[in-house]
């Protein structure tokens, strides 16, 4: 008797305590999230305050700001940080320029069937491995490579090649949010604008753009943050150039605490970026 009664009693107890019910449902995933995201960030921050002996590769768990002092005193890190931010901005702009017309065509011009095919086409590259695509670009931009033999010019390995490759890699992440933003924009608004005598550019500026700003920002968060943390593309097509990510990668086997300190840079930049985005109010409209 008591055995069969206990689940009912338990259910009744939970029914009377909605807070506990919520905790039961959300507790596990939230702890998981907390440990994964907040925990790993905390571990990163902590590691950046340690030091490593370059000879014995022992890590001394003493709290010191030595790594950050080192980062501040070496002009190299400032140069690389600025270069990486510049590249992230550039990649975002290139992707935005490419994504806007494509997304507009998909959402407003193409028939629904064509639009669906185009969406699939946009998603297709995501099925191929990142490495395969980066190496494909290596073959494109290499001396006497595909670009050189078809177009006659190639940027060669370097920053330009890295920006091109990254723009290609992250393009779908920009197209899709803008497409869904445009898709939600009623056609009647565009027609109304036209009826009022607005030319296409005026319609874009006054009707389309204000409505898709949140989508553009969503896309830019992807392209910006993915570029900021990238370390593989720069190694494959970047020639001898370094980015923040490749500094972290090179340092992690030499000096883990210093690598952690460098990595806090990109966390910081992203936090500032998200705060700025929040102030525009774009996040609430998503």
């Amino acid at each position, binding site marked *: 008797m008591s055995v069969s009664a206990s689940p009912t009693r338990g259910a009744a107890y939970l029914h009377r305590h909605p807070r506990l019910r919520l*905790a039961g449902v*959300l*507790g596990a995933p*939230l*702890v998981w*999230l*907390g*440990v994964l*995201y*907040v*925990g790993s960030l*905390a*571990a990163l921050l*902590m590691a950046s305050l340690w030091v490593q*002996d*370059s*000879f*014995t*590769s*022992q890590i*001394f*768990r*003493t709290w010191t700001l030595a790594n950050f002092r*080192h980062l501040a005193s*070496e002009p*190299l890190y400032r*140069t*690389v940080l600025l270069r990486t931010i510049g590249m992230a901005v550039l990649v975002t702009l290139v992707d935005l320029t490419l994504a806007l017309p494509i997304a507009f065509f998909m959402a407003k011009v193409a028939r629904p069937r064509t639009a669906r095919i185009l969406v699939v086409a946009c998603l297709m590259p995501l099925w191929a491995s990142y490495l395969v695509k980066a190496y494909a670009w*290596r073959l494109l931009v*290499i*001396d*006497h*490579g595909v670009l050189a033999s078809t177009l006659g010019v190639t940027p*060669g*390995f370097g920053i330009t090649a890295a920006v091109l490759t990254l723009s290609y890699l992250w393009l779908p992440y920009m197209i899709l949010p803008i497409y869904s933003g445009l898709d939600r924009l009623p056609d009647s608004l565009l027609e109304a604008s036209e009826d009022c005598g607005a030319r296409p550019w005026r319609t874009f500026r006054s009707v389309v753009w204000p409505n898709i700003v949140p989508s553009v920002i969503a896309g830019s968060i992807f392209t910006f943050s993915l570029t900021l943390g990238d370390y593989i593309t720069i190694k494959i097509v970047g*020639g*001898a*150039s*370094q980015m923040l990510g490749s*500094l972290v990668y*090179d*340092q*992690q*086997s*030499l*000096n*883990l605490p210093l690598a952690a300190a460098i990595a806090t840079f990109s966390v910081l930049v992203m936090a500032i970026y998200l705060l700025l985005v929040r102030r525009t109010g774009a996040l609430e409209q998503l």
Partner: protein
Amino acid sequence: MRKWTIAAGAGALALVLASCGTSGGSDSATTAPGGKGFTPPDIPMQKSLGKSEGAVNILAWPGYAEDGSNDKTVDWVTPFEKQTGCQAKVKYFGTSDEAVSLMKTGDYDVVSASGDASLRLVAGGIVAPFNTKLAPNYADVAPFLKNRDWNSVKGQMYGMPHGWGANLLMYNAKTVKPAPTSWAAVFDGASKFKGKVTAYDSPIYIADAALYLMQTQPDLKIKNPYALDQSQFDAAVSLLKKQRQNVGEYWSDYTKEVSAFKAGSTVIGTTWQVIANIASEGSPVKAVLPKNGSTGWSDTWMVAAKAKHPNCAYRWANYVVSPKVNAQVAEYFGEAPANLKACQHTSDKSFCAGYHADDAAYANKIYYWSTPIKQCLDGRTNVRCTDYADWTTAWQEIKG
């Protein structure tokens, strides 16, 4: 909802902090590394060889533990597995720094360590003293490889010598004319090949510049490219910064160097014999040992202090330096075998002569990779030398 997130986050933070607090502090008082005179942590040496554990995790330079997957005719891992019953798992690394950080994980039983990794592994307590009695092939190892600075501490061997060789200068014979004979081609003469020069992507490459300065700028008085005081070091770094303007890419992954040379996007730079062998297949790529000498490596198989399969690790170290296998590896990789009996088993009978395998005088002319430390390796006591931390910082600065 928000409160919950914060609570969960705070909980996780507390957990991480707590777990770190218990281990922190205790090891923070260890003294700085002490060069040749340093005392390695007390790690017991294995006394006898027990039964095979059935598995071994090998950490090796590319080409040192081939199992036929790269080239069907090159396979000495499979016979080892059959002979000893130790299933081998092989992981390759590209730089000594990578080797040290991978060894620190404790996942590997045995590692082929070069001189710029070996003492760091010893000092860090990552590898154990090596009982040479448990590896019978040690008896046949060239005497000039035993008890050296890079593989022993205070008369105690820390591994099984494997082989040694020099870093070479590789070039595209079609574009680089006349054929280079000196490292000047990648330093003072590098601007001729702007954007098509390559160099090894590791701080240890600074020694190559120091070696070049040793010969071209005698007033710097460099005696050992791994023992550089501040002014000598600055000269080497500025030479490398000048070289950087002509470098297309740096390499540490050897397949990347091969592809760059084959495509012609790189035409000159430092290399190893094994890379030259692969790159020269079907393309006009050649490699030379420059007349003014070179940096090089002398590798040692070391057994992890916390090896999960120590018996198989010893069996591997003994097997890979056995006459026949050592000959195979040496010929494949392009280096002098440590085991002098290997010379009777090479397919090319003049191989050992070509690599000066038993020529102690020649072997002593190569500047083997060693870890730079504060106490100058060339014996100077009146100055402080730059250490590996300085080298790693400078290396990232050079790349810019």
